[in-house]
């Protein structure tokens, strides 16, 4: 090995360091695709109250949708969190295993769906820490039978008020319709 190739081999990992240091890290969410619960019924009006890993509000369940609700749903059904209905608003909440750190950017991404056969009247999604909202959004506007991603970013800064508090993901329905959540991911960088 020449000196040149030796130096190249030695320096390459160092050159790669800054990239690795800023890479996004996935934060573990329990049951992020709402597929941990298995429903034996045929897709469609196939639901069950409560959702594994999530604290649920009223009229909130896991539901296996068919092409009636989402035209692109697979034949086996599409699992979602079904939040709220005409009788009451609903919600899902999960407290995560990590706490807010300084100088970190958190990115919460949600697949927000509107059923083709039921009204969608809005939602509010929030990244929280220690029961306090640090970032929120309701900007996805899916039309019947589709999912749209809502991306919520939170940069904690040097001295965040909620430093060291456990992170939480919260979604609630607003109005008298239903919101479906098909996927939840959270990363930090």
């Amino acid at each position: 090995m020449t000196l040149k190739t030796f130096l190249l081999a030695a320096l390459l990992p160092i050159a790669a360091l800054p990239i690795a240091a800023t890479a996004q890290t996935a934060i573990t969410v329990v049951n992020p695709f709402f597929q941990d619960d298995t429903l034996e019924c045929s897709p469609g009006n196939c639901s069950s109250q409560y959702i594994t890993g999530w604290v649920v509000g009223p009229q909130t369940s896991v539901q296996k949708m068919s092409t009636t609700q989402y035209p692109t749903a697979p034949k086996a059904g599409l699992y979602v969190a079904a939040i709220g209905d005409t009788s009451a608003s609903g919600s899902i909440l999960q407290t995560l295993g990590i706490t807010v750190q300084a100088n970190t950017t958190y990115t919460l991404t949600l697949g927000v769906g509107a059923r083709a056969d039921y009204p969608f009247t809005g939602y509010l999604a929030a990244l929280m820490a220690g029961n306090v909202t640090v970032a929120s959004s309701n900007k996805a506007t899916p039309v019947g039978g589709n999912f749209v991603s809502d991306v919520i970013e939170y940069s904690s800064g040097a001295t965040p008020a909620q430093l060291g508090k456990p992170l939480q993901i919260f979604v609630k329905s607003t109005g008298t319709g239903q919101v479906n959540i098909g996927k939840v991911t959270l990363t930090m960088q």
Partner: protein
Amino acid sequence: MRLQRLLFSLAAFLPLAGSAQTPVSIPIINSIFQDDTLSCSPGGDCYSLNITGWVVGPQSGVYKSSTVQYPTAPSSGLYAAYFGGGLTGSILQTLGLTLQANKTYTLTLAVGARADLSFTGYLASLMAGNVPVASSNKATPVGGTFVNDVIEYNSGASPAQLGQPLQIFVKSLGNGQVNIAKVTLTMQ
């Protein structure tokens, strides 16, 4: 004379330093049970199982009562947590703070008894790491009223549950129903 005035001014300022001891409110999700919206008319049949932000036991949910249940309820209805009625029920919330030493925690609950259902008692606890550190069941509301139960806990210099997450827990006793309209927790 100037020194005397200066000392007098400083002495007058001293009580302000005590403001550091002002109680600090600890965030509670859905503390007045109004985060959930029920579209039904207020009354005995206007309720739904589960409550946003709270882990619930059997027969536990959010309820919008009318003047039949609480004579002073507004016409738009009075939201409260309900639990129990036939079965016992409960609500539990884990907070974002952990137990600290040398602090006084004050948990205040508005405990209600419906005018149209029996009230057979409750147990409210401040917990840390799933262990009760202070409990009470001393509020005795009569039908159609709410009464505050104030639970105080002084953690002392070396509490056994130091560093454990704080929790609020309330359960019904007997076969009656308990309503909770408001929960607050402060630390000092």
